[in-house]
């Protein structure tokens, strides 16, 4: 019998139309092709989402979250209309109201505040991707109380990077994936640079090059890594400084690079007790001085022809000045940092530390190579080639979210610089508008005038005590106490302190808490139960202690229940957005790029994009910049703002197709701009000239290009800051110098922690006695904070989050898979299911972040595993450290930046009988959207 098989249609229509926009399933902002098909009713619907091959971020690939976007835009959890609270706060009892009523309520609340006391509005915008707009809006309102979520995310990494070298990882820069031969990956946040890192690891592995993972947990990238270093949490800085010790001791540092491009040759005053001690020698114009090797004389660092000397010391007015590199040798050659000394604390054998250092040195120096590409530096010297040191690094929250995180991140940046592997082929490369040193960023502003805008941008970089956000009486100007002596360099604000400070009325009482996209009543807060209580607490007259709460979200999150007024946002496929160079860029090391979102579908509910709502509200409040002189709206909506707003003449939210359509970076507003973006796939990209592609901080061609693109107004070459002088200025204040003085109880801490050279210190262990085990969370690759659980496809991948425990602790506690344990910290306890994991640091437990859900949220049924067996570690983490008995409460934050120290958590484990559900259990909240369907059978096409 002849073999018979059916005839197949192998060329079916894929879709009626592809609409290209930008993903928002996490923070990476990949390009997506949204395939549209007409349904039986003839209406076009989203049928399929894939990566956009032309897009600079993802180049066609797409992660699980991105492909599951279709299940996000049809999720039953989507809010449907503005909501006004009718039951008690936290109950979830609302009535749907019209937008007119919602806007009238908001205007009625905010208008008197602006006229009398703008600081009584606290506006914090969570995982906002429009911070250059929301921050500008808050500035027009006049409140000093604005920030997004960086303070509880990775501000240590970003801030340490900016102060050290003008940028950090992810949005600031990336490994030179095409040339690197050794890649070291420290603790990551999976939603930061997710697809690019996977693509990079794939490239490196295809070349057979080595990947080393440094992480207490061997999952994901660390599972794929060739070598795994299961470090003890919170000791990354110590490990890195031990590598520095080994490399310096062996002379495996790039002296030529250090002399030319860093402040290693800059001269530090040795004048103990004086107000000069530890400051850098400068000329009258404030420029740092070096000693020129040719003349032996002082010269400004950037004078043409100068060859800075790394060794010579200088005497002046009885003071000895020593190069920064001398100070580094004194510190890091000490046996304090020898592998044998740190091995036990880090949980890494000394031999392994030495082997890693040797491998780094071998690749950096023995596998150095040259690109045949001529370039000219800022001193006017032309170099025939570009020298590559093919070692690269990436790190994020894992080393950042500790109370010693700023200095650990500094240590990592300094390690890269000592190797001469930043902005060279094979190393780490900045993405425009970075590199951008701290001194050309804004400083923080907090000058409030009722009825008028704030005196400048809220967030920025301080360079000494004079830049702190303090009132005349020395009290904090901001509700989150950012830029105060408690955390002077809090460049992203402290969103995690807003609710507790507002509840305590410390430093002052506020009236309206206005939040966007931040699930503060659940997984985005430390001390979740306490925060819920603060949000619902009443005073003696029965009024809420935090009088008013406005919240905007697209979905029925736990936080919605705690708002008095809910402004429902559109989903990411239903709205305009602008991924701006003024904000958090999506550039590549070889290109400047930005992108938009546009409504590829129209909302089928009574919801509006939050930014357009904010524009409407700004008009109703008659905010400067949002209304014309006659009081009429300057921008009809956010799309109109994106096109027509100018931050300064010729510079607006989007860089592409400005003016007559040919302008890049600079040019007048172009009414056709959004259409040009849509035609181009939702993004704009322009490439950096080849001779400008490396050595960017010092490369004259890059600096000129950056000016032509509007990134700077004039060339800004600078030196990498191995020694961060602004830190020293705070130490000097703590030593008693200068007008602005810290409170006495903070002096010692400032002296110790704000060291101008990287240090490692043990985080505060007060109260941790009896809690010996480190506890961490990490984000699954297929989920973005709490959003994933409402997604029918993604929750089938990660619907459960046991507490993973190392074999040693499982045995010690007589536990087996499926048993339950009580996990307690000095702050609280939870009871949760456990599972053994061998590939784990043997004194660390961990779970997936934000899988646990409160009953009633996210349109899940109340018996969903996320709500019955899921749990949060947040209940164990307080925003304050346990009392020390000094009458003061100390924040559970980095003392330099205020970054939430999530990963300093210590716990103890006890086996318990299985409860019916994970503990603690909270009463269900009433869902404003009901629950989802019992079955899905999704097909759009006919």
């Amino acid at each position, binding site marked *: 019998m002849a*073999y018979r098989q*059916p005839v*197949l249609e*192998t060329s*079916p229509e*894929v879709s009626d139309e592809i609409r290209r926009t930008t993903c928002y399933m996490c923070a990476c902002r990949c390009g997506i092709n949204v395939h549209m*098909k007409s349904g039986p009713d003839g209406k076009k619907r989203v049928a399929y989402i*894939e990566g956009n091959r032309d897009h600079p971020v993802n180049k066609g*690939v*797409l*992660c699980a979250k991105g*492909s*599951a976007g279709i299940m996000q835009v049809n999720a039953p959890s989507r809010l449907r209309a503005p909501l006004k609270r009718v039951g008690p706060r936290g109950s979830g009892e609302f009535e749907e109201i019209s937008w007119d009523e919602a806007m009238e309520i908001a205007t009625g609340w905010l208008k008197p505040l602006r006229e009398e006391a703008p600081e009584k509005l606290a506006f914090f915008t969570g995982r906002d991707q429009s911070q250059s707009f929301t921050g500008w809006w808050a500035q027009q309102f006049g409140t000093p109380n604005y920030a997004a979520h960086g303070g509880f995310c990775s501000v240590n990494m970003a801030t340490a990077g900016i102060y050290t070298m003008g940028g950090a990882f992810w949005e600031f820069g990336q490994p030179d994936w095409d040339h690197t031969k050794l890649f070291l990956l420290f603790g990551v946040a999976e939603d930061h640079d997710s697809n690019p890192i*996977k*693509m990079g*690891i*794939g*490239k490196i*592995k295809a070349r057979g090059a080595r990947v*080393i993972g440094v992480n207490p947990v*061997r*999952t*994901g*990238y660390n*599972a794929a890594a*060739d*070598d795994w270093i*299961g470090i003890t949490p919170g000791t990354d800085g110590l490990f890195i400084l031990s590598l520095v010790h*080994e490399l310096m*001791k*062996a002379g495996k540092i790039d*002296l030529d690079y250090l*002399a030319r491009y860093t402040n290693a040759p800059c001269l530090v005053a040795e004048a103990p007790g004086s107000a000069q001690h530890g400051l850098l020698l400068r000329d009258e114009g404030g420029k740092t001085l070096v000693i020129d090797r040719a003349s032996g004389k002082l010269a400004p660092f950037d004078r043409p022809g100068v060859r800075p000397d790394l*060794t010579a010391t200088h005497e002046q007015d009885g003071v000895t000045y020593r190069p920064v590199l001398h100070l580094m040798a004194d510190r890091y050659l000490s046996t304090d940092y020898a592998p044998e000394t740190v091995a036990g604390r880090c949980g890494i*054998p000394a*031999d392994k530390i030495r082997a890693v250092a*040797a*491998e780094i040195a071998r690749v950096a120096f023995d596998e150095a190579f040259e690109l045949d590409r001529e370039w000219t530096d800022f001193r006017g010297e032309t170099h025939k080639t570009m020298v590559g040191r093919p070692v690269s690094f990436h790190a994020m929250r894992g080393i950042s979210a500790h109370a010693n995180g700023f200095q650990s991140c500094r240590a990592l940046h300094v390690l890269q610089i000592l190797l001469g592997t930043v902005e060279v082929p094979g190393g780490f490369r900045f993405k425009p508008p970075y590199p951008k040193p701290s001194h050309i960023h804004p400083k923080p502003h907090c000058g409030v005038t009722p009825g008028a805008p704030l005196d400048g941008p809220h967030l920025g970089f301080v360079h000494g005590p004079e830049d702190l956000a303090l009132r005349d009486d020395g009290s904090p100007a901001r509700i989150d106490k950012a830029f105060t002596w408690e955390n002077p360099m809090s460049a992203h604000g402290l969103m995690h302190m807003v609710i507790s400070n507002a509840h305590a009325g410390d430093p002052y009482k506020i009236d309206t808490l206005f939040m966007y996209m931040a699930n503060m009543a659940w997984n985005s807060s430390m001390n979740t139960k306490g925060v819920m209580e603060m949000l619902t607490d009443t005073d003696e007259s029965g009024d809420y202690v935090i009088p008013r709460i406005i919240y905007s979200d697209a979905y029925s999150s736990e936080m919605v229940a705690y708002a008095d007024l809910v402004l429902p946002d559109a989903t990411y496929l239903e709205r305009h957005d602008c991924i701006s160079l003024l904000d958090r860029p999506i550039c590549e090391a070889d290109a400047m790029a930005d992108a938009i979102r546009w409504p590829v579908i129209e909302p089928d509910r009574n919801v509006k994009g939050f930014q357009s709502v904010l524009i409407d509200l700004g008009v109703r409040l008659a905010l400067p910049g949002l209304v014309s002189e006659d009081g009429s709206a300057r921008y009809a909506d956010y799309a109109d703002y994106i096109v027509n707003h100018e931050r300064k003449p010729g510079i607006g939210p989007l860089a592409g197709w400005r003016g007559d359509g040919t302008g890049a970076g600079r040019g007048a507003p172009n009414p056709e701009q959004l259409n040009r973006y849509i035609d181009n796939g939702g993004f704009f990209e322009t490439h950096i000239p080849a001779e400008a592609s490396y050595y960017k901080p010092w490369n004259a061609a890059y600096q000129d290009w950056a000016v032509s693109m509007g990134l700077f107004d004039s060339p800004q070459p600078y030196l990498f800051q191995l020694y961060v002088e602004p830190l020293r200025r705070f130490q000097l204040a703590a030593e008693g110098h200068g007008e602005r003085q810290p409170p006495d109880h903070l002096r010692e801490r400032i002296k110790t922690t704000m060291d101008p050279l990287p240090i490692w210190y043990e985080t505060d262990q007060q109260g941790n006695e009896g809690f010996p085990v480190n506890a961490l969370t990490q984000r699954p*690759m297929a989920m973005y904070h709490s959003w994933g659980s409402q997604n*029918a*496809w993604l*929750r*089938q991948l990660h619907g459960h989050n046991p507490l993973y425990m190392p074999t040693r602790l499982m045995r010690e506690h007589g536990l087996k898979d499926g048993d339950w344990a009580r996990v307690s910290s000095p702050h609280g306890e939870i009871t949760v299911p456990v599972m053994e*994991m*061998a*590939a*784990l640091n043997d004194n660390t437990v961990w779970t997936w972040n934000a899988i646990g859900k409160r009953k009633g949220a996210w349109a*899940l*049924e109340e018996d*969903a595993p996320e709500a*019955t067996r899921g749990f949060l570690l947040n209940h164990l983490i307080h925003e304050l450290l346990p009392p020390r008995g000094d009458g003061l409460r100390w924040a559970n934050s980095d003392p330099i930046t205020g970054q939430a120290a999530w990963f300093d958590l210590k716990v103890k484990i006890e086996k318990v009988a299985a409860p019916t559900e994970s503990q603690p259990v909270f009463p269900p909240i009433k869902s404003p959207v009901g*629950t*989802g369907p*019992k*079955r*899905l*059978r*999704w*097909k759009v*096409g006919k």
Partner: protein
Amino acid sequence: MTTLPESTDRKLGLVIDLDTCVGCHACVISCKGWNTENYGAPLSDQSPYGADPSGTFLNRVHSYEVQPEDGLAQLIHFPKSCLHCEDAPCVTVCPTGASYKRTEDGIVLVNESDCIGCGLCAWSCPYGARELDAAEGVMKKCTLCVDRIYNDNLPEEDRMPACVRTCPAGARHFGDLGDPDSAVSQLVAERGGLDLMPEQGTRPVNKYLPPRPKDRIAAEPRALEPVVEEATGFLGWLDRALDRLPGGGD
């Protein structure tokens, strides 16, 4: 009972690199998305927002911990879908002829209009690679995106399975494993590609590239030599080292 073709013109299949797979599930969801909208009935989900969500997936990623006798524990991510076996037991067991293997490319498919949902094929597959869709009552399986790979409506560069196109780490490769000169065959040869469970005698077309040996950095103890014995001699070394740099000593 259904017969298999005596031979196929090509042997299209996947090569999955277990050294590079980071376990991100991008392939799982991309597959779910494409095959929900395309080939046959949509992939349904039961209790999608409830206690026991359970949907049809044609490709899943499993993770296994491996504890070497000597050395650090490892975690292996293991994506699994139909392996398009040459001796596919799921075809020969099919009572209606719905399951079949294509002669031109070797892809194993289910003709849904002939499928009675009896489940014999899923029972016979040693890999657990077939799933009965609970809503439609027909057997679903990886089609190797037969409606993509020849699709004239797609740009040529996209004529590959959705899972391969989306894989961020580049851990999935598609091609003709019957052609020893194809890129995938070469990759299998270079990297020692393996059959999954060869003892089952199914002769799978898909191949797996094994993880490279891990944790070798400390195996050959190496340490850097100090430039000077005493830490205090570092500055003297620095002077000498600087003299050796280009432009030094002048």
